[in-house]
C-alpha cells in the first residue's frame, strides 16, 4: 500500500498532490522526485531527521521557494487558485516575537487577505480573531503583547492565525516543538476537531513516540520520500531505519559532487 501511492492516480478530491517535485538550494538538490497524494480528512505526520527537507517540502508546495521541477495541486488546482483553502503555520522561531503587536493582532493577520488592500481591521474581523483565540484556549491573552507569552502560547497564537482563515487543508511546521503539555494537548484536540469536520492537516513532527497516537498517516522523508501511507502500515522499524539510518550518505555525496562539478564550470 505505501509504495503503491507513488503510482496512484492523483484524484481531484485530494487536498494535496505532489508530482515529481525536486527542490534545490543553489545547485544542490534537497528534495528528490517527491511524489505524494494526501488523503482527505486525515492527520498526516511528516517525519525525518534534521536536514531531511521537511520544512523545504512545506515551503515548496506553498510556492515560497522555487522548485526545479514538479507539479503541485491543491484540490486539483494550483495554490494560487486555492489559497484560501490552505492554512499555513510556520515555525515559531521564524519570526521576531519582540514585535510590537498583541496576540489578537497576530491572529487578525490571517484575515488580512479577506479584508483586502488598504482597509482597516474592523470590529467584525477582530471578533473573528478573538473567537479563533478562544478556540485555542487563549481568549484571555488577546491583548497581551506577544513577547509576554510563553513558547506554547505563542505557538497557539500561530495556530489561531491559520484557523481563523477557515481553511480546509492545514500545513503546520513543527507545532509541537518546545511547547508545554497543556499546549500539546490543546493542539492535538484542535487537530482532531479539524479531522472530525472533514479537514486535513499535514504536520512536521519530531517526537516519534507520539506519531502512532496522534496521526493517521505518516510521510517518512529524507531528501526523498522513503515511505508514505497509513501509520499502522508504514511506521515500521524497517522504514524508520531507512529514514534515519544514515544510509543516505550516498545521496548526500552525489548532491555534494554536483555542487563541486557545478562550481568548476
Amino acid at each position, binding site marked *: 500500500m505505501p509504495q503503491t501511492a507513488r503510482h496512484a492516480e492523483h484524484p481531484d478530491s485530494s487536498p494535496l498532490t505532489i508530482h515529481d517535485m525536486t527542490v534545490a538550494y543553489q545547485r544542490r538538490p534537497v528534495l528528490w522526485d517527491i511524489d505524494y497524494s494526501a488523503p482527505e480528512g486525515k492527520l498526516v505526520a511528516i517525519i525525518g531527521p534534521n536536514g531531511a527537507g521537511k520544512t523545504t517540502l512545506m515551503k515548496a508546495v506553498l*510556492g*515560497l521557494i522555487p522548485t526545479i521541477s514538479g507539479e503541485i495541486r491543491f484540490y486539483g488546482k494550483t495554490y494560487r487558485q486555492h489559497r484560501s483553502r490552505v492554512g499555513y503555520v*510556520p515555525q515559531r522561531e521564524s519570526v521576531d516575537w519582540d*514585535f*510590537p503587536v498583541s496576540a489578537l*493582532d497576530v491572529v487578525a493577520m490571517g484575515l488580512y487577505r479577506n479584508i483586502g488592500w488598504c482597509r482597516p481591521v474592523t*470590529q467584525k474581523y477582530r471578533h473573528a480573531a478573538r473567537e479563533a483565540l478562544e478556540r485555542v484556549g487563549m481568549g484571555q491573552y488577546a491583548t497581551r503583547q506577544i513577547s509576554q507569552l510563553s513558547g506554547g502560547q505563542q505557538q497557539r497564537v500561530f495556530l489561531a492565525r491559520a484557523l481563523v482563515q477557515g481553511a480546509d487543508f492545514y500545513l503546520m511546521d513543527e507545532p509541537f516543538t518546545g511547547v508545554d503539555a497543556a499546549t500539546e494537548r490543546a493542539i492535538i484536540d484542535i487537530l482532531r476537531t479539524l479531522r472530525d469536520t472533514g479537514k486535513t492537516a499535514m504536520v512536521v513532527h519530531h517526537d516519534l513516540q507520539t506519531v502512532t497516537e496522534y496521526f493517521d498517516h505518516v510521510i517518512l522523508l529524507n531528501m526523498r520520500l522513503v515511505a508514505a501511507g497509513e501509520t499502522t502500515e508504514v511506521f515500521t522499524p524497517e522504514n524508520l531505519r531507512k529514514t534515519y539510518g544514515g544510509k543516505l550518505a550516498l545521496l548526500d555525496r552525489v548532491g555534494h559532487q554536483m555542487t563541486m562539478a557545478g562550481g568548476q564550470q
Partner: protein
Amino acid sequence: MIGNVREIGLWPVAKLLTACVLLATLLSTDPAMALETEPDDGTSLSEQFVRVVTLRDYNTRIVLLGTMLLGASAGIVGVFMLLRRQALVGDVVAHCALPGIALAFIVLEAVSPGSGKSLPGLLAGAMVAGVLGAWATLAVQRLTRIKPDAALAIVLSVFFGLGVALFTIVQSLPTGTAAGLHDFVYGKPASIIAADVKFIALASAVVVLICGMLFKEFALLCFDDGFAASQGWPVGLLDVVLLGLVVGVTVIGLQSVGLLLVVAMLIIPAAAARFWTEQLWLMTLVAGLLGAAGAAVGVLLSALFPKLAAGAVIVLAGAAFFLVSLAFGTRRGVLRRVMVYWQTRRKIGRHDLMRAAYEALESEGETATPLSPTELTGRTLHFDQLLGRRRWTPGRLKRLVATALREGLLRREDGDVLRLTENGAGHAARIVRNHRLWELYLIRYADVAPSHIDRDADRIEHVLNPELVDELEAVLAERTAAVAVPPSPHEIGTADAATETK
C-alpha cells in the same frame, strides 16, 4: 476609545497632514508675514529667544514647519524600516544620492549654464542615484554570497566615493556656481524657503498617507514575510514601496539635515518610540511626534545660535529624546526595568525572611503546626537563628531585617534579638501556607520527589497570586480544610542540611 482609534487606523493622521499642507500654503503666501524683517544684530539673547520661540520671524516659521513635517514623516517610515531590520538602507540611499546630485548639477549646467542649482533637478538626481544604490545593494546580495551588511558597506562607500570624485570635477567647472552644493552633505535647514515647504509638506503628506493606507500590509511584511507570501501578498512589491518611501524621505531630508545624518531622522525616533509602547500604531504615532519634536527643538536652537550646524543640532535633539526614552520609557525604559527588578528582589527577600522566621519558631516549639498568632509573636528570634535557615550572607540578612523593621513586620527587642509583630506574624503564616500548599501540590500531582520539593516551591511561591492560591486550595481541599498552615511535607532542614543533600 482606544479600539475606535485602532479601527480607523492612521486616517486621522493623514487628514492632519493634509491640513498641514493647507496651513503651509497659507503661511508661506501670507504677504503681511513675508514683510517682517530679520532681527537686528543688536538684539540681546533674551529678546532673540522670545522672538524665536514666539515664531515672530517668517523665516523661522517656514523652516520650522518644513523640518517638523520632514521629521514626522521620517519617524513614521523609520518605524517600518526598523522593524523590517533595514535600518541602514536609509543610510545607503542617502550616501548614494551624492553622485546623483553632482551628476545632476553637471548635466543641468551643460544644458543651460547657471541653472545648476535648481532644487527639483538636484533632488531628482539624488532620487535616481538613491534608488540605484538600493537596487545595487539588493543585486550584490542576490547574485553573490556576500552578506547584507557587507553589501551595504560596499555600495555605500563606492557611491559616496564616486560622489566625492564628481564633486571635485564640479568645483573645477568654469561656471563656479557650485558653492552651496556642500549643504547637501551636512544639511542647512535655513536654506529652506516657502516653496520648499510646500514641496516638503506635499511629499510628507504622500508618505504618511501611503503608510496609513498600507499600515496593516507593512505590519504583516515586517512581522512575518513568509506568512505574508504564503497568503499571496506581493512581498517584493511591498518592499519596493517601502524603499520608495525611504528614498522620498531621504531626498527631502537632504536639504535640512544632510546626507550623512538623514538616517538618524529615520531610525532614532522609531527606536525611541519602542521604549514607550508595545502597540504598533501607537509606536508609529509616537515616532512621528518625536521626529517632529526633535526637528523643532533643533531648528529653534540653531535659530538662537546661528553658528551651530543646524542639521547636526536636529540629530542631537533627536538623540536627546532617545536618551530620555531609553531611561524613562514606560514600557521598556531602563528605569522601569530596574524598578521591576528591585521590586521583585525586595518581595522575594521579604518572603524568604518571613518564612525563615516562621520555620525558626516552628522548629523550636514542641507543638504540632500550625503556630497560632500568639505563639508567633510571643517568642523572640535571634539573628543567628535566621542566618542558619538559608544560605544568605550576614550582610544581606541585615539589610532584609532592616527593611522588615521599617515595614513593621519585625520588632527589635535588644541587639540581635528580634520578634515578629502582629502584622509580621500574619504575613509569615500566609507565606508559609502558600509555600506548603504549593509543595503539596507538586508532590501529589507533579510527581516531584520530596527531597527536591523545597527548592522548586521556592521558585514558584513568589509568583503565586490569590487566584492561584484559591485553585490550590480547591485541589487540596481535604488537607487544608482543617489547618491554617499545613505541616511541612518534608523535613525542615537548615542551610547546612540543604547543602549536604546537594
